[in-house]
């Protein structure tokens, strides 16, 4: 088990290195201008040099993303629970939800700016609105598909609806929830950066906009690298939490139990 795991990770790391190496070589061999596609080594140098300037923007983007994400999760879980518990609510709300979730979120940024001005608030709201739907849908589906037999076990004991939700519905929904969290955190990120790009004077999205209008292409790419890095980091954090909480669903806990 362990050996395979390590080998798998080595392959993944190898692929990443290979990707950057190929990119570097491609630029060198074709003599590509760094105004079009800078070499990764240039990007890294820019990243390190400009890091003190980038740092507050990273913090800004991370903060808006997390705030939007946390609010989105809270709202999503609450709404998902209400919809999932009742079949009627599920059937009634679904079309409206699908309608809302189909709206491209780029289109709502100007509306948020119109309402709240440019800056942090629209970024948070965009992050919220974009990461909210996968959570609602997953929580609702998880609850709605809970096996009635599992619920009967508690019902026969005279358990209240809340008991059943707490002891069966929610734990049973956890794998769905975490699957949606991993999607949602990436979405929240996209939302925050999107809004920063359109209407903000802070954040990585804004840095990239400004850099590209100054033809500072390496800095644009440095921004991309930062975003990718943050995205991966957040994904990893939630994967680790997921493994702890819902190991039962993937049966990872063999070692603990035996």
């Amino acid at each position, binding site marked *: 088990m362990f050996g395979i795991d390590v080998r798998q990770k080595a392959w993944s790391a190898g692929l990443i290195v290979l990707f950057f190496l190929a990119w570097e070589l491609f630029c060198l061999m074709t003599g590509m201008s760094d105004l079009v596609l800078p070499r990764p080594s240039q990007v890294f140098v820019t990243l390190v040099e400009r890091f003190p300037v980038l740092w507050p923007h990273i913090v800004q983007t991370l903060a808006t993303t997390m705030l939007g994400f946390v609010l989105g999760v809270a709202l999503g879980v609450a709404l998902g629970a209400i919809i999932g518990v009742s079949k009627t609510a599920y059937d009634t709300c679904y079309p409206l939800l699908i309608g809302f979730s189909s709206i491209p979120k780029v289109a709502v940024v100007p509306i948020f700016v119109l309402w709240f001005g440019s800056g942090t608030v629209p970024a948070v709201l965009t992050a919220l609105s974009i990461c909210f739907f996968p959570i609602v849908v997953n929580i609702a589906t998880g609850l709605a598909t809970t096996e009635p037999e599992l619920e*009967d076990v508690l019902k*026969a*004991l*005279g*358990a209240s609806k809340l008991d059943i939700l707490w*002891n069966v519905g929610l734990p049973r929904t956890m794998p769905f929830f975490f699957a949606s969290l991993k999607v949602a955190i990436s979405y929240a990120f996209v939302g925050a950066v999107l809004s920063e790009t359109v209407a903000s004077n802070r954040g990585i999205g804004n840095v990239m906009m400004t850099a590209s209008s100054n033809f500072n292409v390496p800095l644009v790419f440095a921004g991309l690298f930062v975003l990718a890095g943050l995205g991966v980091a957040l994904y990893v954090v939630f994967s680790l939490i997921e493994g702890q909480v819902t190991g*039962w669903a993937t049966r990872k806990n063999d070692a603990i139990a035996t």
Partner: protein
Amino acid sequence: MRMQPNDRFDGQPVPETAAATAIELSEASVTFGRGDRAVPALSKTTLKIADGEFVALVGPSGCGKSTILRLVSGLVQPTSGVVIVGGREVAARALRVGMAFQNPTMLPWMTIERNIMLPLKIVEPFRSSFRRLRKTEYRDKANALLEQVGLKGFGTRYPWQLSGGMLQRANLCRALIHEPRMLLLDEPFGALDQFTREELWAILQTLWMTHKPTVLLVTHDLREAGFLASRICVMSARPGRILDDSRVDFARPRTVAMTFEPDFVALNQKLRAFIEDARSTAQQGAG
């Protein structure tokens, strides 16, 4: 499913009769759905079970045996008639019932131990001290039961690490942990092989003889009914009603060998005849 309003029984304790009655169905019927799509599941059924009795319900499949169990457990409300369990109408109850279904229905995210302790988390008087005692007294209780059914040391495993027979044993433990005065078993051994099943009969018999709960067992297996029950009710095809109600007086503890003796075989054949009759009547009715 609609509750029939009934002034006389509305949650009030029923006066005690000479032999304490644990379960009483009077003219209880169940129909699922309404109007054109209504499916009668149980005809008006009257059944009285005394405290400490072990009653087996047998009959052709789909005849409403499980519906009776679900009525008694309160999972289904009677369409008409009254169901009284432990002196209270089921609708207004707070009773101690242990239940085990054909599927072991262990919650996959909990260890076996915690699954077994689940009733203690829900049912009073255990509920209020669950947080305090779950790591000590309650866990010991769960493990003592596991030992009784031959699963010593399996408490910390997860359900998927156990075989079907083991899960069903754990299921029995969960049905018993809160010391219910009443045990409702819905074909608990249906999915097991013959040998495991016979082994579990013996375990269940021992558990019943020590704790003396009232047991209502739904089963397809006539040998199982004869081995375990002190009384067997035969039901007709859907919508079910009770065709025959007879006592089983073989000495206890009963053994598997006894199930091949002439008296036992005769009982078996008698039950078989009833059920075959019910099945053929139903088929004629349908044709």
